[in-house]
């Protein structure tokens, strides 16, 4: 996988560790296995880690994880690394009967593998303790930790609420806030607009790509039925004409098989990567929401500190006994405000770096995906042309 190759190169260029042995961290998610019974049934995955990083147990380790464990990791990283674009997870829900279909499981496995690999190749995220726990802890510990942290983290729905608050300037005015507490530099506006529009365009392309998969499958089925019917018709004829019909039928069935194979390839190598980037953009939107929260806190605390400062000066002038307490309060608040400002500025800096990284990765990944698309379509078209071309001389021969 591309990500694995990048992990070693980015590790050596950005890591502050010793340059003697290049630190690497390589992971894979594989072997989905159904566990449990009935309603409680779920899929477990094998997570394999190969690394030379200190703090990690041995050169290789295998653990068993389930989808909810991955969700835990994502939530913790999101909480701890504000400003960084956390890699997206494959979809949570699925229609019941689809949940254990081979295709869905494979799509999910692919998505989980991509998720962990992106974390492992991110210069900051790969150093996270949460990642280490996820990759190394035994299953009971993992389950215990996950159960503990349930409900502590912000759910995506909470974030969306913050988002909505951020976008409703009107309600701010109604609530009596004098200024809208929202960042609005031209660069930031541009970035936000880009992200929102990108989601639209990618989403549309993904929607049609999914439909195309369906169409290819339908065409494949149609060709197969047609081939069978033609073969039966040919059985009514004799000699060369009958043979020609049989050939036509056989070729149709062969092409039908190729179509089905190509449809699967299109799904896994093109549609899924597109979908993955739609999710990635949605993750960026969550980071944008975090930035808005941080900005709001920074603004509000700054305001409060200013007011407190004015108040303090008043108290000093009036030589009040409350001055001492007020001053202590003021210092505390000032520290908090500076912290909030620092947090916000970190997020801004990180996001700028992340945007560049995101564009690089997206360009590369999308390039591969579109290449696969073109390759697949060309392969299919060639198969069709070849099949019919081979059939023509046979048909011409029996036009006596």
């Amino acid at each position, binding site marked *: 996988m591309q990500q694995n190759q990048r992990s070693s190169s980015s590790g050596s260029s950005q890591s502050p560790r010793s340059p003697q042995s290049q630190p690497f961290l390589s992971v894979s998610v594989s072997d989905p296995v159904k566990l449990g019974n009935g309603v409680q049934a779920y899929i477990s995955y094998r997570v394999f880690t190969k690394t030379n990083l200190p703090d990690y147990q041995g050169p290789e380790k295998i653990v068993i994880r389930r989808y909810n464990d991955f969700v835990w990791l994502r939530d913790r990283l999101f909480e701890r690394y504000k400003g960084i674009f956390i890699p997206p997870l494959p979809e949570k829900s699925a229609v019941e009967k689809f949940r254990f279909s081979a295709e869905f499981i494979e799509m999910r496995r692919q998505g989980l593998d991509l998720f962990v690999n992106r974390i492992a190749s991110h210069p900051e995220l790969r150093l996270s303790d949460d990642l280490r726990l996820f990759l190394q802890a035994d299953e009971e510990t993992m389950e215990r930790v996950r159960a503990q942290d349930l409900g502590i983290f912000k759910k995506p729905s909470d974030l969306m609420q913050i988002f909505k608050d951020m976008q409703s300037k009107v309600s701010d005015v109604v609530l009596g806030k004098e200024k809208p507490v929202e960042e609005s530099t031209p660069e930031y506006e541009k970035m936000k607009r880009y992200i929102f529009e990108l989601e639209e365009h990618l989403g549309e392309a993904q929607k049609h790509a999914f439909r*195309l998969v369906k169409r290819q499958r339908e065409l494949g089925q149609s060709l197969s039925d047609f081939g069978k019917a033609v073969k039966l018709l040919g059985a009514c004829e004799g000699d060369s004409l009958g043979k020609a019909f049989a050939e036509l039928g056989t070729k149709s069935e062969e092409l039908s098989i190729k179509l089905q194979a190509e449809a699967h390839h299109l799904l896994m190598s093109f549609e899924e990567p597109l979908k993955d980037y739609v999710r990635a953009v949605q993750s960026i939107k969550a980071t944008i929401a975090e930035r808005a929260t941080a900005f709001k806190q920074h603004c509000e605390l700054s305001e409060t500190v200013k007011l407190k400062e004015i108040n303090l000066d008043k108290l000093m002038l009036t030589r009040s006994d409350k001055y001492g307490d007020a001053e202590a309060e003021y210092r505390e608040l000032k520290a908090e405000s500076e912290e909030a400002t620092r947090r916000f500025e970190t997020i801004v800096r990180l996001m700028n770096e992340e945007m560049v990284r995101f*564009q690089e990765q997206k360009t590369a990944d999308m390039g591969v995906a579109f290449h696969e698309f073109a390759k697949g379509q060309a392969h299919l078209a060639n198969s069709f042309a070849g099949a019919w071309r081979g059939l023509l001389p046979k048909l011409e021969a029996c036009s006596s």
Partner: protein
Amino acid sequence: MRGFGGSEFSVRRRFRDVVTLADRLSESYRGFFIPPRPDKSVVESQVMHKQEFVEQRRVALEKYLRKLAAHLVIRTSEELRMFLQVQGKLPLSTSTDVASRMLDGAVNLPKQLFGDSRSVVTPHEAVQPAKGGRDLLKKFRELKQSVTNDWGNSRPPAVEEDKEFMEKKEKLFDFETRLTDVSKQAESLVKAQQDMGDTMGELGLSFIKLTKFENEAAILDTQRKRAAELKNIATATVRGSRMYRELNAKTVNNLETLHGYLGAMLAAHNAYSDRANALLTVQTLLSEVSSLQSKADKLEAASSRVFGGDKTRNHKLEELKETMKITEDSKNYAVREYERIKVSSAEKMANLWSKVAEDTRGYVKDSS
């Protein structure tokens, strides 16, 4: 063609004339695969806009007349010539005049019931299958015969001898079933291709939008390069969609031929029932001959016991012998007609197969 007197001419005809032509042809050319005429479809003329309906009918009539003209035997028919050439009212008497048929039948029936030999019909008429009102007695007899055929649970001897025919008939109807299947599958293939073309078009458009957007927002050079490549893919996708549409248009055209064959199957069905009817007539006449024969034998035996002969019985015998002779003639005519139909069926079958071969070759080539 000779016999037409002139190379170009035009007449005005109404739809009822076409119905007359079709009926007369089906009488004169029994056993042939006669192309089916356009439907009367009274309902449609009320549902559709008059203009639309008239145009549709015109197209169908043109197709029908062209098929008749292409039929090697029917194109030489007098009925067709009259239809195409004679100005003014069509001089073909309609054979579907229900009132006169009923009248005919009613007039003939008493004579037939009372054994009036002078009212026995001519061989030519005898050979036609009983048509409802025209020949009630004949109808009864044929009904009795076909019941005998069925209930006797034995195949009529005339058919058993022609195993080859039965095989060919089964083969043809087999062919029809499979042809119908292919036609159905071809239709869903066309729909699937249509959907493919549409979706590819929409996908291509979404690519174009995406690449334009990314190009405008590009901050890296690699992005710009990729955007250009994506544009190529987008164009190719849209082109692919257009190709599917073209392919589909061609496929639909070729389907026309396939559906034409299903129409031909209908002609085959009619020809087969002509033949079956002819056979029934032959058998009816055969058993009539044999029952007349036994009557004659009985009479002869009876009158020979009377000294000097029995004048009445002898007279009856003479009459009976006359009836027998005429019936025998009818039977011979019927057998000849049946044989003729057999031959023409076989010929037509051979023609049909080769025409199918010709046409479906073109269909397959174009679907590539």
